[in-house]
């Protein structure tokens, strides 16, 4: 018994030592916008200090060394973030930094309880669906919150932030239905500018010295859409320069082709829909994206007068702007600037030259990718936010030597170290992707290209190019073929193609690979002479398996609902055959790359329907139908193949739930069966697919199946010669060269013992892009990234995940997630 008394007393004593456990912190509820705030600490954790200019929260370490970059700010100050909570109509204050050696060493980073008098943990109430928050950097007396739901502004006295006695915001109503979406301060911080998509206007609200709001002025926006800048009309010498660094130095990268600009989209409604505002620190202008108009407007922050807008041809969402950066790796001054915008239609990202208004290229959407679409960044996800990060970058010293006599810092130069200017894209797939704009570490990268003593181990193969994804890992080589191409014929095993294009033991079963000429952007990848061309450019290549299947199925043509019409010479199918690339015998042109192709086949892959099989054995119809499909006693059947004479999109008077109609010839094979036999034997819906005839169907596991078929007059499927010439061919023929955007090869003559061979090509070792997977933080849940912001003061990226993770603080000197707050 005594043995129990002592532990019990200890337990009681422990329990009594903390009679009022701290309340559980509040959790974010659909956070959206972020602003930053610096607080001077005075030692009193409850009421101490007050908001001060943001520049006071400079990093604690001034060495610039990566290992010292712990995210803490100078002693006596703390960095805070204000985060809007859209579901609860609140503003959360979050302390981002500690004060380890300062006056408040008991404080820790985390959410701040705005009203300690209330039970539980509270945030500051604002309006309905707060969508934007801003604080003056130089004189942060107040925080301003734009509330999209209630069309109001909330003004919060920041002095009360840490008192824990609650904050009652002042509320200012905007015009009903304004639905503010974005808010910025003018460069002088003497007024707020608010985008009002509900009204098609921008509002300007002056601020007095104490940060109080003045009278609101509403301004209509122009609807003029100037012609976009056409780079193809400019002389080659005036085109934007190319910033690239490769090691080995002779590594060739594809040059994005210069193409004519897209035709500007036509607004669905005449009223503008301003969405995102961005202050240009160089010109002082405010840039305005628009969800309806294909322009980025430029406003004077004082008069709200509009300068000539930048026509980007598509409506846009978020915007981000770089500082001046050098034009090339060797340039001696920073002369270039870029505007990045998210295409509001498909959430791709475009880059615009905004270096100098006097240049003819000013406002041009730049070619940034060697593969289509060439005017969009190579982004695997759909963008929801963009930010330009400039860790340790100063445009005035951008070209000074970086690595000479530097050891410790240079040791860390590598894919994960960010020193310079980078674009960060928050994507819908839960990743933050990084793109190179200007990397000051280039002179420290690439063993074999620099002094080996300054290099990073295993940093052999380096590619850095502006507007391209940052390659996120140390590499020894670029993309290659995993091994020689292989043939697999009828499941008899795999045979590698020899360098001379033959297939050794399978030579009688498969065709040879003949020499070909590789055209840019494809490169020779196999053979004593070039016999196979694929994409090997590190940005254009994809880890991919390319297959060419003899008599293969045209993708998306399988259906269990084909409807044969009794007595008719056609079958109705579910999908539109022209869209899927089906072509009939009578629809082939006499010339062109597919000349001589005999048209596709419809293949019945399913068994006879129950209404036939339920007939008595020996029934004449059942017997005839079983002969048609060569049905065995075990129920096995042989597919019935019917040549397609014509394929058409479903006529207006056809069945509304069917996509198209295939006109057919009598079935192939012996037995003298006719199309009438087929329609008689399949009175119910049939399982069918369309296959190529005496040709190979070429597909990419990553890109799919490219074909040249379009719907012509009367819905007739036909080959578009322009598409075929552009490499959208779909079918490879014997004795002909097959060219597509991702592979080129030439097949020899038809072999004597041809079965159904499959040619396979694997592209591998494609470098992966630098990214942070937010959805993997804390156990892997779904993410919905809403905003991404770069804070120049602590040189960190902040990403807002509305779903689970909350506010994510990302360190850039060695790309890692440093903290999360929610």
């Amino acid at each position, binding site marked *: 018994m005594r043995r129990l008394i002592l532990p019990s007393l200890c337990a009681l004593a422990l329990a009594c030592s903390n009679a009022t456990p701290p309340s559980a912190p509040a959790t974010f509820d659909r956070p959206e916008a972020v602003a930053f705030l610096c607080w001077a600490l005075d030692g009193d954790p409850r009421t101490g200090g007050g908001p001060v200019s943001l520049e006071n929260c400079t990093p604690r370490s001034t060495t610039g060394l990566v290992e010292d970059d712990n995210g803490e700010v100078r002693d006596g100050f703390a960095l805070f973030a204000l985060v809007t909570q859209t579901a609860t109509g609140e503003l959360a204050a979050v302390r981002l930094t500690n004060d380890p050696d300062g006056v408040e060493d008991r404080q820790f980073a985390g959410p701040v309880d705005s009203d300690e008098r209330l039970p539980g943990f509270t945030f500051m109430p604002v309006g309905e669906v707060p969508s934007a928050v801003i604080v003056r950097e130089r004189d942060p007396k107040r925080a301003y919150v734009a509330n999209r739901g209630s069309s109001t502004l909330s003004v919060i006295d920041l002095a009360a932030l840490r008192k824990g006695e609650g904050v009652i915001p002042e509320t200012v109503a905007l015009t009903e239905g304004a639905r503010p979406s974005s808010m910025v301060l003018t460069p002088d911080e003497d007024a707020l500018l608010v985008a009002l998509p509900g009204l098609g206007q921008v509002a300007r609200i002056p601020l007095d010295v104490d940060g109080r709001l003045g009278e609101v002025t509403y301004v209509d926006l122009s609807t003029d859409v100037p012609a976009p800048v056409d780079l193809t009309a400019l002389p080659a010498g005036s085109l934007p320069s190319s910033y690239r660094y490769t090691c080995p130095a002779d590594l060739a990268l594809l040059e994005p082709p210069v193409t004519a600009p897209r035709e500007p989209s036509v607004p669905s409604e005449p009223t503008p829909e301003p969405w995102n505002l961005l202050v240009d620190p160089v010109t002082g202008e405010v840039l305005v994206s628009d969800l309806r108009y294909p322009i980025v407007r430029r406003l004077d922050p004082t008069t709200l007068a509009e300068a000539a807008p930048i026509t980007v041809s598509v409506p846009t969402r978020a915007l981000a702007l770089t500082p001046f950066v050098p034009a090339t790796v060797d340039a001696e001054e920073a002369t270039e600037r870029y505007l990045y915008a998210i295409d509001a239609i498909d959430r791709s990202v475009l880059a615009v030259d905004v270096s100098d208004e006097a240049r003819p290229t000013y406002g041009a959407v730049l070619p940034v990718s060697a593969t289509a679409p060439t005017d969009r960044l190579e982004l695997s996800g759909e963008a929801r936010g963009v930010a330009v990060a400039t860790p340790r970058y100063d445009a005035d010293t951008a070209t000074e030597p970086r690595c000479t006599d530097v050891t410790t810092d240079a040791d860390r130069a590598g894919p994960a170290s960010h020193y310079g200017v980078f674009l960060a894209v928050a994507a*819908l797939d839960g990743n933050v992707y990084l793109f190179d704009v200007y990397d000051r570490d280039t002179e420290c990268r690439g063993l074999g290209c620099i002094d080996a003593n300054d290099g990073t181990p295993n940093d052999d193969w380096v590619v850095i190019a502006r507007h391209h994804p940052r390659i996120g890992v140390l590499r020894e080589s670029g993309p290659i073929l995993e091994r020689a191409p292989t043939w697999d014929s009828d499941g008899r095993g795999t045979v590698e193609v020899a360098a001379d294009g033959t297939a050794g033991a399978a030579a009688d079963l498969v065709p040879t690979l003949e020499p070909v000429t590789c055209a840019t952007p494809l490169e020779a990848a196999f053979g004593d002479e070039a016999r196979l061309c694929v994409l090997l450019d590190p940005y254009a290549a994809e880890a991919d398996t390319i297959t060419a299947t003899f008599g293969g199925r045209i993708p998306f043509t399988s259906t269990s609902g084909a409807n044969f019409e009794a007595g008719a010479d056609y079958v109705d199918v579910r999908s539109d055959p022209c869209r899927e690339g089906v072509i009939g015998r009578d629809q082939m042109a006499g010339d062109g790359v597919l000349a001589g192709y005999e048209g596709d086949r419809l293949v019945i892959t399913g068994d006879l329907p129950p209404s036939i099989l339920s007939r008595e054995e020996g029934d004449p119809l059942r017997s005839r139908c079983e002969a048609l499909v060569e049905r065995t006693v075990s129920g096995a059947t042989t597919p019935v193949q019917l040549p397609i004479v014509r394929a058409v999109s479903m006529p207006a008077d056809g069945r509304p739930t069917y996509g198209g109609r295939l006109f057919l010839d009598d079935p192939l094979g012996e037995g003298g069966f006719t199309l009438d036999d087929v329609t008689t034997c399949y009175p119910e819906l049939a399982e069918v697919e369309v296959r190529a005839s005496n040709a190979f169907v070429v597909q990419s596991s990553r890109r799919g199946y490219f074909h040249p078929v379009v719907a012509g007059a009367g819905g007739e499927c036909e080959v578009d010669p322009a598409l075929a010439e552009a490499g959208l061919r779909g079918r490879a023929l014997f004795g002909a060269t097959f060219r597509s955007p991702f592979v080129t090869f030439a097949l020899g003559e038809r072999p004597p013992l041809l079965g159904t061979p499959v040619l396979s090509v694997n592209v591998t070792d494609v470098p992966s892009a630098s990214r942070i997977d937010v959805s993997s933080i804390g156990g892997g849940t779904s993410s919905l990234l809403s905003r991404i912001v770069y804070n120049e003061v602590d040189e960190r990226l902040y990403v807002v995940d509305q779903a689970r993770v909350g506010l994510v603080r990302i360190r850039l000197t060695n790309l890692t997630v440093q903290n999360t707050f929610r």
Partner: protein
Amino acid sequence: MPSRTLVAFAGACLLAACNFDQAGLDPPPRTFNFPIAVALSAAPAGGEPGYLFVANSNFDIHYNTGSLQSIDLARVHALIASSCGGGSDDCVIPLSNDVVVSEVGVGSHVSGLELSPGGDRLYMSVRANRNLTFVDVADGELRCDAERRDPGGAQEEDIPRCSDDFRSGDDAIATARDLVLNDEPIAVATGRIEDIGGAADSGDFVLMALRSGGVALFLDRPGGEGRRPELVHVATGFPDDLVNLSIQPGTGVAWMTSSSSSALGRVGIALDEGDLARSFLFDFGDRFIGGVDQGDDVRDLVFAGTGGTAFALTRSPEALLTLDVERAGRNPGELGLGDIYEVGDGPSRLTLAEVGGRPYVLVSCFDARKIFIVDPEVRSVVAVVGGFSGPFEMVAAPHTRDGSTETFLYVTDFTTSQVRVVNLEPLTTAGVPRIVASLGEPITVETLGN
């Protein structure tokens, strides 16, 4: 070692407990019991729906059947005006005889409720029945040859139960075709046969989704009194864990959502104009939600306008997605993504409502206990309505009083067994809608054992 006496006594007790004649508790009338689905009666020309139909799931099997009730909306609004001072969030309207004008037992675990295009019949998916359940409607009165289980029995009050004829479709064609319904019904959708290529006045079709990836096609053809929907086909092979299905306007194609897949299954109806009984369902091919992280738990889908745009509700992430049905996404089979709106935890159902001539999308979030309201024209969440305990299915309808028309939302609050009434009119002035009344006294889980 227990004594033989004890063993015998325990055995006797066990036997006594095994009374197979136990019919269970009859549900008390005028009581919601885990309401899960709602539908409005057909509005007369130029008028407004007069009745709200509420399906109770009997989720906890506390009673021996779930029920269907018909609520007089005119009476509800009169009580809101008189007893609740125009409405307040603590106003509870008891389910009196003049509020609940009709109710019938339909079986436990109702999962879906849909009114026929003509407004004269309600179709239900009821898991306990494993078949199509239907109830005829006339001026708010529910008719299904219902009888009380035990007239004059021990329990003071009971509700009449639908006869077996209303708990399954006609299976004559199904028998000839060897069709078997052996899966849980999870949702229903209906439309006119003439709208998908059939002859005029040829009746309605009903699609019933089955949880494990199947769909059953019923045809409800004109047949006068006592007509029953005929089961004519069952198609399988669609995504597992189906949750709901919606018919794409102007087509004979229904889209299905699954809680374990980003695939939106599509089923088409192939009408045989010569003999409707030979009509079939076919797999119209999946479309996929791609690009989001991960999009593999889709709870609801509703088409807007003519069907070119759809709204999909996902739980991964918890968001409302705008889908461009015509535009392809980045990968084969994927749909083009339009605007995306964050919503609260546990998004469950969505509905469309027009308030002040402006369309809104409303999303119930079961775990967040809120309803998120999206204005697609300004591409924003514009209001978040709280005060619920477990909001699930909802439906909006106009109500005119003193010459002015307001839009009300009726929301099943599953966990308190109530129906909440929300006035959406504040949306017209950038305000936040609020609960103006709750139908029925709250029944919390804690009280169920009493």
